[in-house]
């Protein structure tokens, strides 16, 4: 069959799969009427379950809103029963007759309509307001009402469905109400199977080509030069990340798809993170196959690809699920601080310390990894041991991101930004971890007036979600596959410092053989102007070089070689190009 037809079929299959995947949010009704009241009750209680079963079936996109309303109604009834009602608040404030000084906390009592735990809380929250002078009554009123709100909020957290469990409850509810065939495993096989099949068919033309460099028509191709189709992929990816992190309820059906796999692996219910891990690993696997085909004949690329696939499947995806099954902390053993920025967060440290000896070993493994493993291995092999052979972000970049590696910005300007940004994030990560570790080990939330929880959530949102997630992966089709690694990863900055100043790794150039064609610079995913070094015969030692080896692969004259060697003479700033005798007269 013709290559173009195969590609069309492959693409068609893949897009069908994507279409089905996305459509799950918009079609297929979520139905609570058929669910057992018992299982629904496990979400919260019988009352809530009854309210749910009263809802008419609707697709996720609509049901999410309905659920929100159901939760709000439920919370309102909780407030009515146990909280502070508006009418009693209004009456209470009226009784004060615009005189704030008349306020006494002992008036917060059963007689006036306040009782039970909520009354106690209100007295506690407003104690400081008694006997205080107020500029006017309205400022007192505003403060009082806000305290009432706080009390109700805490009542809801305790007895209703609070902020922190709202998202999870909605998700769990939809999972219960999702059609059974969706959760059976066949739906997943169909949808993901189509995508995988599409990919494999699409790769057949690549298999037909001879082993060698296969970069033909990349710059003739709109989807690889940040035009129309690439922009669509970019938008889809960013939207996916935003929904995954901030509005996971809209992915509930898709999460249900992988429920059986989650049960098999972890004995646990599926979640958006399991779905994410599954998609991540699956796409790495399929695109990894493409790498193996594309780089036939270049063992370095093939071994490296197998390595990142192994570490992702075994360490990042499977092992943590199995650990969960055995009720151990689910830890990705290859994940090193500061990339794994939550390492010293209190809930994590507690997890390890509560998990007996094994937990303790895991905790110390993590410390040894970043404190000893990183500098030692980087000394011997350069930062490539992690960034190109082990890291999950790197693994996705090298497989799924391979079609986009040439989009990295090679200009001097980009490098200037890179230097400041990536080391800035490292400083932020170190400072944030310092604050958080202080909290974890001392129990105090504030240090020098800065709250460690707000610092950590700021870091988590901007660096963890926006930068590493949405920008890091979403921007593949427009800015290349290593945007996070190059501009944001604090571990990369740390590894890079070791590589630049104390390492045996370098990319050697072959004498005077460079013809300045520019393939190396074009295909360098880190935006290094490799050609600048090669054409003057200078070794390439850059803190950003992840040792992917693609420059060496695409060089048409074999000028570049990644190698580990003696430190002596590694950095040669003033090289002499071999080829002629430099006899000069009249010296």
């Amino acid at each position, binding site marked *: 069959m013709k290559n173009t037809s195969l590609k069309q079929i492959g693409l068609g299959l893949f897009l069908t799969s994507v279409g089905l995947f996305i459509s799950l949010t918009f079609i297929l009704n979520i139905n609570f009427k058929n669910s057992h009241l018992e299982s629904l009750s496990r979400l919260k209680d019988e009352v809530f379950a009854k309210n749910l079963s009263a809802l008419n079936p609707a697709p996720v996109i609509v049901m999410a809103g309905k659920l929100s309303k159901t939760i709000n109604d439920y919370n309102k009834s909780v407030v009515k029963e146990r909280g502070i009602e508006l009418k009693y608040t209004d009456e209470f404030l009226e009784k004060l007759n615009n005189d704030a000084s008349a306020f006494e906390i002992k008036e917060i009592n059963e007689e006036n309509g306040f009782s039970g735990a909520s009354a106690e809380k209100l007295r506690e929250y407003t104690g400081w307001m008694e006997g205080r002078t107020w500029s006017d009554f309205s400022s007192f009123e505003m403060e009082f009402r806000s305290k009432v709100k706080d009390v109700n909020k805490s009542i809801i957290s305790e007895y209703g469905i609070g902020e922190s469990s709202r998202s999870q409850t909605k998700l769990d509810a939809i999972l219960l109400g999702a059609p059974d065939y969706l959760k059976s495993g066949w739906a997943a096989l169909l949808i993901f199977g189509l995508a995988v099949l599409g990919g494999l068919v699409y790769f057949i033309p690549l298999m037909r080509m001879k082993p060698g460099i296969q970069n033909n028509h990349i710059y003739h191709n709109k989807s690889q030069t940040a035009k129309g189709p690439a922009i669509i992929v970019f938008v889809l990816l960013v939207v996916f990340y935003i929904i995954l992190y901030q509005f996971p309820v809209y992915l509930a059906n898709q999460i249900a798809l992988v429920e059986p796999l989650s049960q098999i692996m972890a004995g646990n219910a599926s979640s958006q993170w399991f779905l994410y891990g599954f998609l991540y690993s699956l796409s790495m696997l399929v695109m990894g196959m493409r790498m193996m085909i594309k780089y036939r004949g270049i063992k370095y690329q093939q071994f490296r690809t197998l390595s990142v696939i192994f570490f992702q499947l075994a360490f990042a995806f499977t092992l943590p699920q199995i650990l969960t099954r055995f009720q151990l902390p689910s830890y990705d053993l290859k994940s090193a601080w500061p990339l794994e920025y939550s390492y010293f967060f209190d809930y994590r440290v507690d997890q390890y310390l509560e998990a007996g000896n094994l937990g303790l070993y895991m905790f110390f493994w993590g410390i040894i990894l970043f404190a000893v493993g990183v500098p030692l291995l980087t000394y011997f092999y350069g930062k490539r041991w992690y960034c190109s052979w082990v890291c999950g972000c790197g693994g996705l970049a090298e497989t799924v991101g391979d079609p986009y590696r040439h989009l990295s910005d090679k200009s001097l300007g980009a490098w200037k930004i890179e230097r400041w940004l990536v080391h800035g994030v490292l400083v932020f990560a170190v400072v944030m971890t310092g604050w958080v570790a202080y909290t974890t080990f001392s129990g105090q939330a504030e240090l020098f007036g800065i709250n460690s929880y707000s610092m950590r959530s700021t870091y988590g949102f901007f660096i963890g979600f926006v930068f590493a997630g949405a920008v890091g992966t979403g921007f593949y089709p427009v800015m290349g596959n290593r945007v996070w690694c190059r501009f944001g990863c604090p571990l990369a900055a740390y590894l890079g410092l070791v590589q630049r100043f104390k390492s045996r790794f370098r990319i050697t150039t072959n004498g005077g*053989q460079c013809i*300045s*064609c520019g393939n190396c610079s*074009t295909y360098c995913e880190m935006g290094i102007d490799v050609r600048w070094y090669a054409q003057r015969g200078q070794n390439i030692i850059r803190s950003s070089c992840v040792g992917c080896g693609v420059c060496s692969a695409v060089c048409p004259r074999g000028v570049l070689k*990644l190698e580990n060697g003696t430190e002596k003479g590694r950095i040669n700033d003033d090289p002499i190009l071999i*080829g002629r*005798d430099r006899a000069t007269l009249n010296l």
Partner: protein
Amino acid sequence: MSHGTVIIGNGIAGITTARYLRKYSDQRIQVISSETPYFFSRTALMYVYMGHMKFEQIKPYEDWFWEKNKIELVQARVERLDVQTKKLILDTGESISYDKLVIATGSKPRFFGWKGQDLQGVQGLFSYQDLQLLEENTPRPYEEGHPTKKAVVVGGGLIGVELAEMLNTRAIDVTMLVRDGHFWGNVITENEGKWIGKHIEDHGVKLQLNTELKEILADDTGGVAGVLTGNDDKIDCQLVGLTTGVQPNIDFLKGSGIEINRGVMVDEKLRTNVADVYAAGDCAELRNPLPGRKAIEPVWYVGRMMGEALGRTLSGTDSPYLPGPWFNSAKFFDIEYMTYGTVSAKPAEGEDQFFWKQEGKNRFLTIAYEKESQKFLGINSFGIRLKHEFFDLALRKGWKIGRVVGHLKLANFDPEFSPKWFKKMGRDFTDQTGIAQDKPGLFKKNFA
């Protein structure tokens, strides 16, 4: 008033001259080109056509580099040179004065006056304009319904094989006419030519050996319809690529007083017969080439090395162009080629050659050595990356072949995890030639 140095031509020779001159001097430097506004790597034009890179990416220096280094770029064509008044007359009518002049106008394709060589659809491949013409002649990069279905490439050499590779990426049926009995017959050995020929044919290109071009046939509209070979075979095609060699681009110097032969005659300091006028690169012809070297060597590396020497000379310190041992490189589809020293296409008097190929792979080499003295003469390596530094030293120091073969492990430049080959090759060498290997100590890493 100082006019400084003016360089005609912004290729590797002209630009390297400018760069090295600027390294050692503050004098005014102007570079004139009628080809492109900025220096680009000619060797990479093929990758632009194939879609591996954009044109912007084959420029070795970012555009701000020239202003930053005070190298003025002039876009114009030089019509005439007046050595009496030291002026260049441009096609715009303007003139540029110079204190010192460097002629670095490079090569142009060499045609042999075939009937039909001026038809539409017939072209050489050298300049940026040739690339643009090729794009026009073969529109729509990868569609199968486009008008250029078949092409004939005349000349089995470096540019020919690159052109064939380029056309292959656009679903064009390519037939290559090779005058000799094997591909690149006057440079590589018969064994090597045979394997390269097979590789080329594996890519779907038809090779017609021992075949010359007789005539190019026209259709009704002034375009190409086909070619007639020396064997009177007719081959239909819509495109003819004439890659039968290059010659110095110096027509504009006729009658100027500069001594020219095939190229601009220069001494080892790259001076022409006229004071303050120099030449470098493809267009220069050495009066006294070094033994074993040619008078004209139209090769990227030579242009660069001449530029290095000339730039230094122009700054005031005489620096003759003294090339070291010969080296060159190329790529034939997926097989990389590098050569160090001299391996004769047919073994010369007193020269022995050893050919070795790795079983089942496109990796092979030929080493040449003096029969009597066993002195190492040169190596052609295909698909095996070897260190330039190693062979530069071996040739300068006059190593014997036994030592070269014995130390080959230290010349390894293949990427990590590549198949190992030196042991087998060394054993095969000794078995076949009877010459023992002179090996280094077990832990020796450097080869000096």
